[in-house]
C-alpha cells in the first residue's frame, strides 16, 4: 500500500488514461466511418465493411473499456461464452434463411 495520491490536474488524470483515450478516439473514428459508409455510399459491399467495423468497435469496448483481458479466467470464459452463444444463435438462424 502506497501513500495517498494528491488530486492531479485534468492533464494528470488523462495521463493515467492513455489507453482509454486511444480507445475513445478509435471508437469515434469507427463511428464516423460507419456513418459515412451508411449515408453516403450504402451498398452490399459497404454493409460488409460496416459489420467488420462494428465487430472492431465491440472488440475495442470489450478489450479496453471493460478490460476483459485483465479479468480472472472464469470471467473471461463467461464473457467469451456469451458472445459465442450469440454467434451460434445468429449464425444458425440466418443460415436457415439464406439457404431456403
Amino acid at each position, binding site marked *: 500500500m502506497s501513500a495517498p495520491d494528491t488530486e492531479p490536474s485534468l492533464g494528470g*488524470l488523462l495521463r493515467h488514461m492513455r489507453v482509454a483515450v486511444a480507445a475513445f478516439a478509435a471508437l469515434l473514428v469507427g463511428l464516423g466511418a460507419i456513418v459515412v459508409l451508411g449515408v453516403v455510399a450504402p451498398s452490399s459491399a459497404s454493409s460488409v465493411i460496416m459489420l467488420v467495423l462494428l465487430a472492431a468497435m465491440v472488440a475495442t469496448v470489450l478489450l479496453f473499456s471493460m478490460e476483459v483481458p485483465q479479468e480472472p479466467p472464469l470471467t473471461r470464459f463467461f464473457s467469451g461464452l456469451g458472445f459465442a452463444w450469440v454467434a451460434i444463435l445468429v449464425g444458425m438462424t440466418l443460415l436457415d434463411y439464406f439457404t431456403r
Partner: protein
Amino acid sequence: MTTARRMSASVAAPEGVGIEVAEQFADATQQRHAAQLGMWAWLLTELLLFAGLFLCAAVLHVTHPAAVARAARHLKVWIGAANTAVLICSSLTMTGAITASRHGWRRWMLRCLLATAALGTLFLLLKGFEYYQDYLEHMTPFLDRPYALAGEPATRLYIDLYFLTTALHALHLTTGVAILLGMTWIARKPRFLHRHQNWIEVYGLYWHFIDLIWIMVFTLIYVVPR
C-alpha cells in the same frame, strides 16, 4: 478492512482505497472476483435479450429487404449518430471515474460520475426529441393515428422493432443514470473509497455494456439496412 485492487492496476493501491470484506468471502480478492463475475453473468443475459431483437431485425432484412430499407431511411440517422458519440464520450468519463477511484482521487471520481450521468441524460433528451419527430412524421404505427408508410405493411414490423429495441435500451439507460446518481450521492462521503471502491468498477462494466449495445443498435438498426 482489506484493500484490494483490480488486477489491471499498474501501481500499488493507495492508502484509503479498498473494499470492506463481507463475512461470506475469504478475502477482498475473492469478493471482488465474485462481484465481477456476477455482473458479467447478468450482462450476458442482457446480451442474449438484445441479440434476439437484432436477430429479428436481420430476419426482417432478409425477408423484406425493400420495405426494411424504406423504413430505415425514415429513421433519424444523424440523431442516432450524435447519440452514439454522446455514449462513447460517457464511456470515457466512466473510465475516468474508475481510474480516479483506483488512485483515491475522490473529487475527480465524483466529477467524472456526474459528467457520465449528464451525458446519459443528454442521450435520453435526444432520444425523446427523436421520438417526437417520429410522432410528427406519422412514423408511429402502434398509435391510433395515420401511419406514413401504411401502404407497405412490412415496414410496420421494422418500425415497431425499432421502437421496442430503442425503448428497451433507453429503459436500461434511465435505470443506469438513476443508479449512477444514487451512487454518486453515496460516494461523496469521505470514506466511500475505503470501503466500496469495487462498486465503481462493477458499475463501470454496466455502463460500458450499455454503450456497447447502443453501438450495435445504431449500426444494425439505423445504418446497415439503409
